[in-house]
């Protein structure tokens, strides 16, 4: 082993990944040692995450680094490669998982369910799998690590497997994950074009015909789409993400979905050398439908983790819209515009990793403090859990896409890339683009609705149950994790020029152009991706001006008038029997959306009649696709299995007969 000073960034990364695996192994040795696992191993894992992110930042501006690990099949070692794209996603993974691991150090409790050591192993294998997927440079190691990631997360999802609903969610997850994995495997098969060499280098060298390139792209879109949860392969996501323990939900939504985006970018832009414009149109359409579906369903959820899971579907949809736009521009050879759209995609991926992890961890803290996931039984927690509440507010505002936080910057960039699309060669596409832009604007505004519902119902108002007043705030490690992620949301929002400098080499790898130079030209204060007279935004100045107006108003009011205040009971409109149950519930807050977007839902109502002794009101708004697509497929599969089952008589003589007949048929075919 060489001295650490000579190590390249990729060596540091491998060291961090090895450290994760070692931490997991130690966890298994100390299976029930709660203190060692929670207070020592998870913080060490966070340290390894930070190492990974730092190494990624160091490698982001250099040329690609490669490494070959003597693992894998004979004659097919693991090829690893660290280029700007991998480095960017590894920074995302490291930075987000550092916060999640720190939170996890304080999250897992003694004597609950799965032993802590086992969770520690699975958690760190999950991280290692994701990191290796991003480093992989041949199809074999990619698929192995992709499966490691899928299986580790499956066992984490089913950590609480005594609950039947969780077993069901885990099964659904495993099923869709493997459908996707098969498509990715087939995609690699198409990409290597009968050369038998599965390294990405070889795939890059192949020039596929438009037909085979399209087949590869569609397979990649299906495969990675299954992992990302794009329609209609989203069905597992709202089941599996909420079922996992909250730090794992945070990793799955914040980071694991990004591995799918990474794969789509890697295959769609870098490995595939052919780009057709209609791929972009397809991705735009799918992305927009996914985003709208996700946000509309998020608005009607009553379970806080499911709400966030649907909101992840929305964000993945927005990312796919951005990828579609970039593909469209690449297909027409407009590299500068493609770079702008990809900048928006990468920026949003990073933002989503931070704010969604933050919000999932926030729900975890609430869940621990109250034991309640149902929005209808929460409320008023800002008073009892100020740390969680105020930090979650940062995530909420970021997720709602409000300036000056980070979610706004990426939405701004995405809308900007829609605006400068004049002069596409096809009239159809030229008219399609503004319509999609309108859809994106609608989704963004609905995102605000969802986030107000999320924060308002959980943290504001009066506690809907009396026992909520006993809720305790997050402990030290949990606070550290939340603080790290919230700080990320704020800083990523305030320093867009610096983030874009980091993204610039990535878009150069993908489409050969970047917006970094133009942004740097106009100084660090202003974000002007094209030219300042065409569009500019300065979050820092924005924040300063709002804060200055705030402070000036505050001081002037105190100075000219007074600062007296009197506390009194809330105004009851002359009706003295108001209570906390009269606040809007989650159903109530989502009701307008349910009404406006009624065709989206399959609504089942159970209304009370005036004569009921104990009136019951129940309403479920479920997914049409489950009934129109998944249940028919399941029924067909069952019918086919029943027919196949006729073959299986359970008698050895029958099976021998089958073998004999098969052999005869083969012989006839061969000697014919």
């Amino acid at each position: 082993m060489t001295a650490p000073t000579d190590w390249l960034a990729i060596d540091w990364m491998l060291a961090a990944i090895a450290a994760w695996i070692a931490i997991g192994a130690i966890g298994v040795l100390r299976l029930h040692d709660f203190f060692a696992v929670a207070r020592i191993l998870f913080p060490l894992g966070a340290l390894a995450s930070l190492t990974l992110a730092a190494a990624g930042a160091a490698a982001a501006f250099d040329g690609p680094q490669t490494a070959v690990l003597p693992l894998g099949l004979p004659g097919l070692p693991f090829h690893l490669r660290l280029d700007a794209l991998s480095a960017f996603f590894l920074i995302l993974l490291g930075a987000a998982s550092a916060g999640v691991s720190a939170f996890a150090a304080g999250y897992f409790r003694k004597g609950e369910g799965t032993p802590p050591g086992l969770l520690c192993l699975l958690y760190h294998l999950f991280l290692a799998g994701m990191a290796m997927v991003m480093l992989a440079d041949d199809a074999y190691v990619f698929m192995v690590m992709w499966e490691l990631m899928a299986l580790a997360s499956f066992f984490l999802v089913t950590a609480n497997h005594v609950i039947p609903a969780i077993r069901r969610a885990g099964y659904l997850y495993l099923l869709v994950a493997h459908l996707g994995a098969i498509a990715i495997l087939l995609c690699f098969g198409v990409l290597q074009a009968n050369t038998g060499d599965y390294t990405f280098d070889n795939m890059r060298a192949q020039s596929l015909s438009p037909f085979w390139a399209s087949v590869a792209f569609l397979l990649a879109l299906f495969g990675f789409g299954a992992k990302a949860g794009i329609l209609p392969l989203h069905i597992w996501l709202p089941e599996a993400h909420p079922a996992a323990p909250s730090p794992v939900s945070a990793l799955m939504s914040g980071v694991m979905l990004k591995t799918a985006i990474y794969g789509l970018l890697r295959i769609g832009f870098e490995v595939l050398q052919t780009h057709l414009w209609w791929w972009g149109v397809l991705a735009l359409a799918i992305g927009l439908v996914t985003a709208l579906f996700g946000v509309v369903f998020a608005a009607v959820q009553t379970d806080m983790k499911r709400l966030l899971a649907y909101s992840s579907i929305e964000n993945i949809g927005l990312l796919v819209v951005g990828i579609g736009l970039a593909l469209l521009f690449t297909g027409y050879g407009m590299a500068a515009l493609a770079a702008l759209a990809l900048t928006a995609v990468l920026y949003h991926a990073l933002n989503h990793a931070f704010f969604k992890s933050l919000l999932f961890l926030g729900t975890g803290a609430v869940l621990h403090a109250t034991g309640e996931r149902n929005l209808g039984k929460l409320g008023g927690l800002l008073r009892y859990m100020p740390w969680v509440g105020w930090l979650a507010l940062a995530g909420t505002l970021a997720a709602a896409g409000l300036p000056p936080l980070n979610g706004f910057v990426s939405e701004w960039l995405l809308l900007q890339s829609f605006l400068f699309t004049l002069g596409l060669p096809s009239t159809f596409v030229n008219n399609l683009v503004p319509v999609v832009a309108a859809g994106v604007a609608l989704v963004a505004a609905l995102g605000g609705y969802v986030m107000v519902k999320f924060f308002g119902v959980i943290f504001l108002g009066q506690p809907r149950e009396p026992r909520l007043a006993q809720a305790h705030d997050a402990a030290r490690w949990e606070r550290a994790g939340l603080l790290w992620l919230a700080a990320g949301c704020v800083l990523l929002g305030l320093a867009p020029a610096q983030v874009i400098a980091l993204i610039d080499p990535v878009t150069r790898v993908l489409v050969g152009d970047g917006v970094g130079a133009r942004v740097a030209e106009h100084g660090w204060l202003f974000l002007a991706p094209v030219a300042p007279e065409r569009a500019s935004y300065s979050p820092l100045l924005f924040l300063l001006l709002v804060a200055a107006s705030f402070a000036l108003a505050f001081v002037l009011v105190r100075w000219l008038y007074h600062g007296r205040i009197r506390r009194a009971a809330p105004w009851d409109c002359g009706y003295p029997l108001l209570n906390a149950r009269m606040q809007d519930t989650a159903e109530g807050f989502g009701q307008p959306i349910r009404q406006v977007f009624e065709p989206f839902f399959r609504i089942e109502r159970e209304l009370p009649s005036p004569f009921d002794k104990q009136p019951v009101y129940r309403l479920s708004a479920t997914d049409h696709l489950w009934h129109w697509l998944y249940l028919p497929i399941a029924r067909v599969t069952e019918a086919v299995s029943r027919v196949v089952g006729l073959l299986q008589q359970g008698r050895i003589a029958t099976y021998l007969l089958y073998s004999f007949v098969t052999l005869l048929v083969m012989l006839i075919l061969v000697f014919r």
Partner: protein
Amino acid sequence: MTIESFVAQLVAVALAVLGAPLLTGWVNQCRAWLQNKSAPPLLLPYRTLHKLFWKESVVAEGASPLFRGAPYIVFGAMVLACGIVPSLSTDLPLAPAADAIALVGLFALARVFMSLAAMDIGTAFGTLGARREMLIGFLAEPALLMVLFTAAFMTQSTSLASIVETIANQEFAIYPSLAFAGVAFTMVSLAENARVPVDNPATHLELTMIHEAMILEYSGRHLALIEWAASLKLFAYSCIGLAIFFPWGIAQVHDLLGLLLAAPVLVGKLALGGAALAVIETLSAKMRIFRVPEFLAGAFLLAVIGILVHFLLGA
């Protein structure tokens, strides 16, 4: 960027902050005349603000700091909005801080804080108001964005100053895309400023309230700031409309004469716009709340059609 442009910026913000209640007073006066009532004095909004600032703030038990901070945040956001919308001149040093999209974001920021503050106390009417406000917001916000996009596609810029300069210097003609956008913008402004077909600023019945339901718990200086912010919002919206659809008369050079000329032109345009608003409010009846999404979806579609018309006709 010169001293003059900073002076112009300061004058514009000061004019907006100090003059916005006057616009509200003028609209109220016009409406009273049209409805055959004896009109309140023009300066009544100032007196109301003064009175409210003197009064003690009664804050509900259990209100979090969010509740007390929200009026200042909303007020700050509206002051910034008035600072970046070109009202007197297009040479604004603050303008690069936020373009048209960020302006929409600014309004969204104010709306979200207002809604969260309304949910903070936990009374039935507060949450009802917050829910209705967000319902209006999720349709009005993209519609406003699409109106601004129509202008942005025409001028190839999202900077409000560039939009105004380009449109003002264009050959004078009726642009069909702007006509669609103008209708959409009018509808959005009515909804966003809690005006009659959507909301009634003078209502006393809690069940029909939207904006008023959200601020039921506010009193004293907090209420004054919210009322003032509402005036500023009306002012900002009027200036956006004037800047995009009637940009003539806004100074494009930073000399004193241009500014001096621009001020009376702005006052005249605002007076006409305020009177038009009073006419619309008088002629229309308040809609049921469930009609509002249709109304706003209409505005949204009109704005999108405006963009498509621009692409199809090139005008």
